[in-house]
């Protein structure tokens, strides 16, 4: 059976498969080049770039990845990302403090797992409610966690100030507290976690998540375990976000401070995946780059154009307004974000090469 429509689609592009394989090769190649560049950066970049730009960019990418697994793949919207980051940060802090014999990667992973378990509890309402109501319940998680870490001194080892300094970072006898050390720690973690998450997203677990996202009633009728799938999504998502939170505290800020994991952070992560592209792995990096680099560019650009004539506070407000406008624009024009734009660009390039 062939309808006119399908004939037309197939007649339109006979070399569809070769274009696709060229595009896949182009994408794989660009990932390799990008990884090599990121690994080589400490040789050329100064401390400012590592500390203030690249480390937060990488960690923001990882956080976005965590939320994207939950929201972009499994379709469960959450505003609890900041809260899960703080769980990861405080859990890892306490592990480093109380079990100093554990190697750093183990503490990081355990911190992530603790955050993942908290995520499962926070995800329980998703078995009954969805959409806006679920967002409201994750919002409650966010506020509850913020309150918890402020209220109970045990988490911050009864420190008198609200921010506590992170223990020294070391692995296999190497001190990782230099900017280059912290950068390489972050990069390694991000690469490893991204590789595992990307595999998971393509696996049966990821397929179940996307089935739940696209049509949950049909998913349950064909036997996809919907409740288990949602809770697994909350677990993996919060695990990744927890690891990102620990890195944010130890590799970026150098302190554990509940205030840096507030609701603003949750929104920032959500904006990053909306702009970058929901349901895409590369979108997390694009979205995080947008969130980190655009303000820096606006700063330089704004300073250059207005020559200090405009109040920096005004400029910051302008930035926020611009961000808001861009998000609205993306939601309307390109709901699949920068990742979709990039994917189209690759396809165009690939078909040009094959021509």
């Amino acid at each position, binding site marked *: *059976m062939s*309808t006119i*429509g*399908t004939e037309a*689609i*197939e007649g339109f592009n006979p070399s569809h498969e070769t274009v696709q394989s060229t595009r896949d090769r182009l994408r794989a190649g660009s990932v390799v080049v990008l990884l090599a560049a990121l690994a080589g950066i400490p040789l050329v970049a100064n401390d400012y770039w590592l500390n203030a730009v690249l480390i937060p960019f990488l960690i923001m990418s990882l956080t976005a990845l965590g939320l994207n697994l939950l929201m972009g793949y499994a379709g469960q919207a959450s505003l609890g990302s900041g809260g899960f980051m703080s769980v990861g940060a405080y859990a890892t802090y306490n592990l480093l403090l109380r079990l100093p014999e554990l190697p750093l990667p183990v503490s990081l992973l355990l911190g992530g797992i603790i955050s993942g378990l908290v995520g499962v509890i926070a995800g329980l309402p998703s078995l009954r409610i969805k959409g806006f109501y679920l967002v409201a319940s994750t919002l409650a998680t966010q506020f509850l966690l913020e309150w918890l870490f402020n209220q109970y001194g045990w988490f911050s080892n009864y420190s008198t100030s609200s921010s506590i300094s992170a223990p020294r970072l070391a692995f296999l006898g190497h001190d990782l507290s230099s900017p280059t050390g912290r950068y390489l720690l972050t990069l390694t973690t991000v690469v490893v976690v991204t590789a*595992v*998450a990307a*595999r*998971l997203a393509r*696996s*049966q*677990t*990821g*397929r*179940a998540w*996307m*089935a739940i*996202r*696209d*049509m949950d*009633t*049909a*998913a*349950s*009728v*064909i*036997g*996809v*375990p*919907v409740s288990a799938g949602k809770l*697994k999504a909350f677990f*993996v998502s919060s695990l990744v976000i927890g690891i990102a939170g620990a890195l944010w505290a130890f590799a970026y800020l150098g302190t554990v401070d509940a205030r840096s994991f507030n609701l603003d952070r949750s929104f920032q992560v959500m904006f990053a995946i909306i702009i970058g592209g929901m*349901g895409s792995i590369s979108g997390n990096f694009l979205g995080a780059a947008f969130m980190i680099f655009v303000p820096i560019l606006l700063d330089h650009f704004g300073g250059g154009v207005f020559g200090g004539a405009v109040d920096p506070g005004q400029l910051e407000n302008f930035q926020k307004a611009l961000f808001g406008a861009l998000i609205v624009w993306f939601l309307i024009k390109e709901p699949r974000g920068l990742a979709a734009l990039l994917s189209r660009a690759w396809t165009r390039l690939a078909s040009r090469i094959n021509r």
Partner: protein
Amino acid sequence: MSGPILQLRDVSLSFQGIKALNALSFEVARGEICALIGPNGAGKSSLLNIINGVYRADSGSVTFNGEQFIRIRPAHAAHLGVGRTFQHNALFRHLSVLDNVLAGLIRHSRTTLLEHAFGVGRDRRETREFKRRADEIIAFLDLTRHRDTVVATLPYGVQKRVDLARALVGRPSLLLLDEPMAGMNQDEKHEMSRLILETNASLGTTIVLIEHDMSVVMGLSHHVVVLDYGRKVGDGSPEEVRKNPDVIAAYLGTAH
């Protein structure tokens, strides 16, 4: 196992006081194609929803494969071997044809989250095996050239076949088809009828389907159950049903 594969006894269902199904009883024999017909609102879709647990009957019982249940969950019904397609498109719209079909195999999976994350253990073998089974069904339903296409971009008639493939890949013993030919042109209907007959013949799947096109129903089914306002007004072979005066009055005789 002998005896009917599906047996409904005195099944009633009402929505806010309105009776959708009224003490309905019938049997579906193993290996047959059974058509449910009746005017809109006769309760046909509600009946399918009761069989696979989307709705719960107010009273009465459903016996599937000799096992009687009052309330079954959709996922449990799927595990017992009840497959289902939908009247309105319920595909996973952002996924490819292959991924949609593979989703129909998830309930047969024996692998865990950790195996998926690291590609260790049984995961690779299971993935290969599932892909093979999915490709088999995709070829069976003539969907091979659409295999890697995102379903939302496919024509409606093709999407209906993807829905069938997704239900069929898990090899259900009972397949419920809710208006598999709605909105199709004549060619597409013929093709779908052929596929349903072939599924029934070569895979031995018992099929219960809802269909409005009488010529299709009469050509396709071994057994026809006629519903009107939640009551059964006819039950028998296509010939018997065609001659039944109650059926003619209730359904075939009325213009619609």
